[in-house]
């Protein structure tokens, strides 16, 4: 079946530094979505990528969809304490949206 893998599982970042989290699928995806879950909260939609090689930016966050539509990345620059949380990717193939296990980000001030 379709699997979506995310790495790393945990990311400890010094405030002000950059980091990247990766999402890989075993099958080609029709789209990929990213969600953020703050500690104690529920996942909130961030962005959706549909086209091969697509890149989208939201302030300090850059999202990329691979050329083969099997992988994606989220790059955060100049990390802030407000970036704390778990970032999930979710890949859609046919009717099903499969979530990765998430990357949990902690920030050292």
């Amino acid at each position: 079946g379709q699997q979506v893998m995310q790495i790393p599982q945990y990311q400890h970042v010094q405030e002000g530094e950059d980091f990247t989290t990766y999402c890989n699928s075993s099958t080609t995806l029709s789209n990929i979505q990213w969600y953020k879950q703050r500690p104690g909260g529920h996942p909130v939609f961030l962005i959706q990528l549909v086209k091969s090689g697509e890149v989208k930016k939201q302030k300090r966050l850059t999202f990329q969809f691979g050329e083969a539509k099997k992988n994606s990345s989220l790059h955060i620059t100049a990390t802030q304490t407000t970036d704390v949380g778990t970032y999930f990717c979710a890949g859609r193939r046919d009717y099903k949206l499969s979530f990765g296990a998430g990357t949990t980000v902690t920030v050292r001030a």
Partner: protein
Amino acid sequence: SQTIHQWPATLVQPVGSPLSLECTVEGTSNPNLYWYRQAAGRGLQLLFYSVGIGQISSEVPQNLSASRPQDRQFILSSKKLLLSDSGFYLCAWSPLMDRGTDTQYFGPGTRLTVL
């Protein structure tokens, strides 16, 4: 605007007791509805999804069941809870695929502890 409600927010239940979690959506019609479970520090496990009234698809066989008695109401149930049923239960909705987006909007969740 659309809103999604879940209740209760927290629940502590003994092993072997029944369960009923409710989710309702406002401000949209014919949504796709989903139940997820998230174990502590883990990812999202899809339990059930529904594309219409009375239409339920189960992703994981277990002692849980789901029902959709009305268009915007989704209920998660169990006749006898197990310790392993503890977790954070999230309801989500998404528009129909032909509306151009399939973003999922999550409710606030129910934290269930089975003792």
